[in-house]
Structure formats: C-alpha cells, structure tokens
C-alpha cells in the first residue's frame, strides 16, 4: 500500500543545502499499525508530511496505492489527501467557533461527490469516538481529550485509507491519552492502516511495528514484542489512580 524507496528530502536556503531524510526504504501494508519514532530534529515530521502528501520528496519515490506521489501537482495532492488520508494533530486544530458537528464535516466540503447523508455520517463518526451527547458543543466547551476525539472523528469521516497521527497524546493527560489510544486500537481492529508519529516510546509501544529514525536515516525497523493494551491499562487506572 505504502512503498518508500530511496526517499530523500533536502532543503536549500541560498547556497546551504540541508539533508533531512536520506535513503529511506520501507513498505507499509494495508491494516498495519506502525509508529514512526525519533527524537526531535530527526526528520520524522518531514517524513510524516511526505507520507501525508503535504510535501514532496526531493529524491527517491513514494508510492501510495500505485500512485507516484512525487509526480503529482498541488491540486492532485489536495485531492489525494482528501480521499486517502486522515490527519490527527497534537494541537487538535479545530475551528474554535464551530460546533463539533461542523468541525467533523469540514473535510466533506472538499470531496468530489458530496454524500446526501453527510450529517448522519458526522453523527456516526462522533458516536464512534464516544461523543454522541457532545455534537453541538464548541471546542472551548470540551475537554482536551474530547477535542482530540472530535479531531479523530473528523479524520474518519471521509473513510480514509490511512490515519496519520502526529503526537496525538502530546497535549493530553494520562487517562485521556489512553482513551484516545483505545479508539486507535479499535480502528486498527476494524482493519484501518494507522501511522503514529511520536518521540515517545510509551506511545509507540501501542503499535505493532516501530520504525526508528536517527539523523534522517532509518536506524531500526522492528516488530513490537509486548504491544500495550490501552483497555487493560484504563481498567487498572479506574481502580487506582485518579485522573489528573
């Protein structure tokens, strides 16, 4: 599904050329749950932007479902993002003055064929993240965890093939973070392809596979031995610790 070969990304400012990604090779199959890890400055954000079709590589190739992303123009990239990719960001990026429903429906503005049951789809997406009774709330009336769940519902509404999440628990407390991870576990079980981008080993351990970046190169690409189960951790949390 995703195939990256000899991928490179260099930035040039004036005469200075900085190489951010060098000779990246990997495949991600449909239904995989992958974490891309690395400390800040290792190029993981750049890699995420390329995988999310927000940016183009300067060398090598990135194929998404047999489409060579590097050869597409800006409009084609926009359409590809709309159809195939659902983003979840650390800062949620919700429209402040719009309700949860309106926020979730945002990607539908840019689809080719607007679904007749758009509102139903949005309701379904919000229900699937446990926000059935918060649909008409605005972001400032919701907790951080709830806001992130609205963002997840927004990523799901177009039924994308890949969910790309960038430090999705970075702004959440432990319990909200686990709740969000539990939603991701579900999505994975439903057969979706998920890519987590994180600097946090504890977050990465929720995935099946971890790709570690170091200085713009792949340092490690391994299966996770002991995958964390957010549901189990949540139940023990309910018995002991209070939420922060």
């Amino acid at each position, binding site marked *: 599904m995703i195939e990256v070969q000899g991928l490179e990304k260099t930035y040039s400012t004036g005469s200075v050329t900085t190489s951010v990604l060098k000779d990246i090779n990997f495949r991600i199959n449909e239904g995989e749950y992958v974490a891309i890890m690395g400390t800040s400055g290792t190029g993981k954000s750049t890699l995420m932007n390329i995988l999310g079709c927000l940016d183009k590589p300067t060398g090598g190739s990135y194929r998404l479902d047999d489409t060579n992303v590097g050869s597409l123009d800006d409009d084609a990239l*926009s359409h590809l993002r709309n159809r195939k990719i659902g983003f979840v960001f650390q800062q949620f990026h919700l429209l402040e003055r719009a309700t949860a429903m309106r926020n979730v429906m945002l990607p539908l503005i*840019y689809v080719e064929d607007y679904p007749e049951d758009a509102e139903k789809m949005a309701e379904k997406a919000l229900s699937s993240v446990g926000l059935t009774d918060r649909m008409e709330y605005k972001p400032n009336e919701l907790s951080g965890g709830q806001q992130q769940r609205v963002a997840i519902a927004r990523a799901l509404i177009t039924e994308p093939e890949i969910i790309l999440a960038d430090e999705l628990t970075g702004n959440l407390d432990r319990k909200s973070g686990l709740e969000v991870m539990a939603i991701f576990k579900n999505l994975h079980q439903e057969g979706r392809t998920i890519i987590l981008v994180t600097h946090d080993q504890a977050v990465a351990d929720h995935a099946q596979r971890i790709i570690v970046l170091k200085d713009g190169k792949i340092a490690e690409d391994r299966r996770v031995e002991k995958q964390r189960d957010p549901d189990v951790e949540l139940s023990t949390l309910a018995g002991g610790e209070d939420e922060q």
Partner: protein
Amino acid sequence: MRIQRIIGQSTQALGRNKLRTFFMMTGTIVGIAALTVIMAIGSGTEKKVMKRMEAFGPRAIMLIAGGGKDLPPPDFNLTTLRMEDAEAVRNQVQGIEALAPAAFKRQMPIKAGGEQIQANVFAVDSDWHEAWDWYVSEGDPIAAEDVATMARVCVIGQTTSRDLFGNDSPIGEYIHIQNVRFRVKGILKHKGTSPMGTDFDNRALIPLTTGMRRLFNQEHITYVRIKVKDLDQIETVKTQVRQLIHGRHHITPPEEDDFRIVSAKGIGDLARGTSKTLSILLIALAGLSLFVGGVVLMNILLISVGERTKEIGLRRATGATRGDILSQFVIESLTVTLFGMVLGCGLGVGITMFLAQATKIPVAFSWEPFALATLFALLVGTFFGVQPARKAAALNPVESLR
C-alpha cells in the same frame, strides 16, 4: 456543489465575527449610500428640469429686454426693445408659427368690489394665447379688435378671479387696475405654480395698446414670445433673431447685448448647472469612501488571513486546493461588499427620503443606482479581496500547521 459549500464556509466565517465584518463593510455602506443619494438627486433634478422645459414650451423662444446670462426677470428700466423689433422678427425670420410681443408690470394693485389684491399685469396682443398655448376656460380671449380699439377689457387668471370674486363668475364685472377700469371678458385656464414658486394663475391680461398707452405709459415692450414651427429649427431661428436685433440695435459683438434669447434648452442647462457642484462633491465622496473602504477591507482581510493561518493549513490538509482557499476568501470579500451594498442602498434611500421631506432638493428613484451599486460592490470586493485571498492560497500547508 463544491462552490456552494465554500460559500457556506465564507458566510459562517463572517457570521462568527460580526463586529469585524461590520467594520469591513462600513466603507462600502457609506460609498454606496452616497452613490444612491447622488443618483436620486441627479434624476430628481433632471425630472424637474424636464418639467421646467416642458412648462416653458419646447418649441418656444423668448426675446427678452436686458442683457446678461441669467434667467428672467427682464430689465424693466430698459427701453430699447420695441414693437418695431417684434414686427421685424415677424416679417423677416423664417419658420415662425406664432409671435406675441408683451409688456408687463409686476404686482400692480387691482381692486374690485371691496377687495384689493396685487397681480402681474400683462399687456398682450391677440396672438398671445396661441404663442403660449394658453387659452380661456370661460368667456372670450383678448381679440385683435380689442388691441386695435384700445379696449378697456381684461382676461384674468383663476387665482385672481377667486381672490376678487370668490366663487361668483367675474365675466362682465369690472375691475380697477391702478385707477383704470376694465371689464372682465374671460378667465384663463388653470396653470399652477412655477418651479420658483410664482403662481401663474394670479394675473391679468389686457390689450397691448391699452397697456402701453393708458396704463404703463411706455413705448417699449418687455419681451417677445416666439413659437417656431419645427423643433429642429429652434437654433436657426435663434441665430436669425439675434442677428436681426444686433443690426437693429447697432450692436457689434463683443459689445454687450441689450437683450437675451432664451429657449427650453437654455433653461435646462441653467437649471442643471446649479446642482452640478453638489453632485461632483458627492461623487468624490462616494468614490473616496469606496476606495478607502476597499483598502480597509483588504487590510482586515490580510490580518484575518494571518490569524487564520492554522485554519487554512487544516483546510489544505483535509483536501482544500489552492483554488478552494482563494475562492473562500474572495467570496468573503464579495459577501462583505454585497451585503454592505444592500445596507448602503437602504441607508441611501433613507437619507434621500429625509432630504425630500426636510429640504426642497428634488429627488427621484430609478433602478440605475442599484445596478451601479451592485457593479461597484462586485468590483471593490474582487479588487480588494484578491490580494489577501492569494496570500491565503499561497500559504504552505506544512508551515501553516506548525
């Protein structure tokens, strides 16, 4: 449709920040309001001018004693315009249908029974009725015989009749103008009030000879009314009359004339002239506020683009193309100016109605100002909206999400 959904996003964004939206609108509101007022005054003035030209008589020319460029009244002290001049025009100028010399005095005392009033008194010959297209509604007009015999008869206006005789018929009754007794032989048809406020119906017509010799005791006349046969001939007739009187009065231009020749067109031009300065001022105001309003709109939009960088990045990430972002911001700008246009038209209509009530400025509404307002709203909205919209569309999604 996609564009409808984008329009929805634009209007929602504007609705979420109403105060800012209002500020973006103010320039358009003021500009369009000014435009509406100007055009209402313009067409009101034009209507009034047309009415005046109509009242004057489109085929009429007046040869009036006294030089200068202003409208009547004529110079009553000037004695150079004579009956012989009128006769020369009648005999030597081609294309004349009717010609009527007249002498008149303003506000002469008229008595009848116990009543005394003041009215304008016109000494006219029998052609006066035809030259002015103004006939009697009751009794008889001034006849050629009355002029020949210096008869002491008169035809009076409706107001004069009512003031002196109430509802009784004045025909056959006697009135005194100064101390000369006249028999009333007819009443003129109702004419109404001049745009300047003079009552046309307060007047007395007497035979020209009687007026000049008995009442006014003068050898000169005040004006000659000329009705031409063909509307196209007005200018040629005017030129002929001017040349003729120049010769008779021994005037060689650039020496100043001792007479004026006025036609409906001249009346129109003069009446328009007075409202021109006001119009030019208001047009300048409208143009200026539309321009300043456009600049303000553009700046607020630019600030808005800066503040909404993350929103733009998010839209791009979820699939908006550059074109979609461009459309959204241009539509925001257009919505502001079109909505401002509607409010501006409303305000303009309000101000115009107030002016019509509170002042004597003539106004009239037509569809043109609204069409023009829509055009201006579209122009300003597009012209000043494109720059911020292009800035928004050019944002790099990766950087704007950071």
